[in-house]
């Protein structure tokens, strides 16, 4: 579960607003750290790895319509700081494609960014413990653990949204008995009760709350299928790169010498 496919307007403003503030702060700190050295090398690297993640997302596994994310691969290649920036770029582009909500860009950045950061940290730890020859095994374990953590974070977000009064919704419901539209709430949207920590004033109608338990049951049932597919693919990709260019996997993409092979990697 890499990014939240929760639409705009479902999460309470305080939650997505807080997500946006935290994510932008993290991106700003990451950009400040990234700018300290060799920034002209980082800009194309960031752009291309972000594009790589986006292109991988557009590649569906037929016929099960599962799309890959490559977030752990991107984290291993970029490291934590650049990973956070890449996550932000990916989410902005996805939001513009209608693939993730615009208001949840912040929360999505934090989710994908944490996948990259946790993936990077666990991968380094795993390689240190199991050795460089076990890249595939390490990647499978790391990807599954990382996705389990971020999925739990997603359930946490829904719990935060669903647990309080802020998640209550009016629906403009049509009463089948009277064939009249009913308004469950009297309070206006700009009263922003949630910001004051109060439940909205109800006018005799039932408030609707997100069912966290059912949501958790669904994502923990369906999620592991995706985790395993993702883990196997990311393991194959990282294993391939580790065999061909080990420095990229064990030292990160910036560990290469500044002098490259000539164009098209052949001596021409």
């Amino acid at each position: 579960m890499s990014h939240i496919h929760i639409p705009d307007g479902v999460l309470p403003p305080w939650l997505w607003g807080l997500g946006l503030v935290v994510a932008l702060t993290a991106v700003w700190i990451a950009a400040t750290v990234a700018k300290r050295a060799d920034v002209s090398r980082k800009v194309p690297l960031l752009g291309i790895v972000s594009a790589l993640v986006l292109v991988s997302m557009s590649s569906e596994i037929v016929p099960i319509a599962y799309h890959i994310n490559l977030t752990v691969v991107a984290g291993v290649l970029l490291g934590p700081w650049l990973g956070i920036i890449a996550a932000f770029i990916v989410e902005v582009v996805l939001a513009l494609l209608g693939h993730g909500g615009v208001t949840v860009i912040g929360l999505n950045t934090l989710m994908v960014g944490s996948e990259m950061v946790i993936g990077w940290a666990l991968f380094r730890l795993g390689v240190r413990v199991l050795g460089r020859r076990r890249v595939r095994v390490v990647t499978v374990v790391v990807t599954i653990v990382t996705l389990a953590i971020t999925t739990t974070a997603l359930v946490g977000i829904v719990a935060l949204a669903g647990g309080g009064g802020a998640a209550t919704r009016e629906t403009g419901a049509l009463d089948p008995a009277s064939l009249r539209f009913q308004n469950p709430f009297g309070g206006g949207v700009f009263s922003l009760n949630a910001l004051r920590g109060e439940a909205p004033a109800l006018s005799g109608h039932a408030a609707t709350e997100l069912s966290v338990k059912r949501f958790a049951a669904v994502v923990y049932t369906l999620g592991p299928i995706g985790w395993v597919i993702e883990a196997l693919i990311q393991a194959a990709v990282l294993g391939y790169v580790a065999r061909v260019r080990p420095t990229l996997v064990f030292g990160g993409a910036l560990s290469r010498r500044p002098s490259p092979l000539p164009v098209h990697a052949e001596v021409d």
Partner: protein
Amino acid sequence: MTAPLAYPATGHDHAHTYGCDTVVRVSCVKHSYEDGTQVDLCGLEFTADRGSRVAILGPNGSGKTTMLFHILGLLTPQEGEVSVLGVDPARDWPSIRRRVGVVLQNVDEQLISPTVFDDVAFSPRQYGLPEAEARRLAEAALDLLGIAGLAARVPHNLSGGEKRKVALAGALVMEPELLVLDEPFEGLDPASRADLLGLLLRLTEERRLTTVMSTHDIDTVPEFADFAYVLQPGGRIALKGTPAEVFEQAEAMARSNIRPPVLAELFARLRDADPSAPHAALTIDDAVEALGRWKCG
């Protein structure tokens, strides 16, 4: 230096005078890559004088791109010396970068900005010129290449020929003294190739640009270059001279896995059959003239 041979003119004014105002010099540069491949650009010294058009020929793996990368300061020589506009490009590239224009092999990767206009204006903006001046320079470069109509387009929707013209506009926007072209005709259809060749000839003539070009396209060399260098596998610079001089040395060319242009081969076979046949003419006009003279006795 090989002694200049008495060959008929190929239609160019061979103004190449050794060392009078050398813009580029590469002296026995050695470079080894991460994978262990060794390139030794030794043998003859490579030079390009002001206003000359120099072609670098050689098979795959001979080190043509390596030579260009050294000229552009992208690689640091482990041995030997490189001098471009009087400085070591690997060390002092910032001091000469405004004076050097570059079009690399894969132009798609060279077009960085999201629109054609922004890409051509890239260098002036990065050099901190005022926006009005950057725009003026970009518009002038687009006009020069005849592609003002593409200004608002995005690069990835252009044809191969158009992309190359945009890359060339980006390379010429700062009015450089030296133009470095890596395989500029690769992947172009014959019409686009002829179009680009005509354009390059006009621009280099008009601006008296020193041009260094690596190419596999042997047929463009007599038309474009004043001077040619031939590299052997491993990087050794085996031949240098005017295109006519170089293409006459069939054996040395064969050692470099280079087949001479069709016209050169035709005239060589004619001379085998009839020693009175004329020396190689490398352009169609010259060939028509030479064969006409021969026919009339």
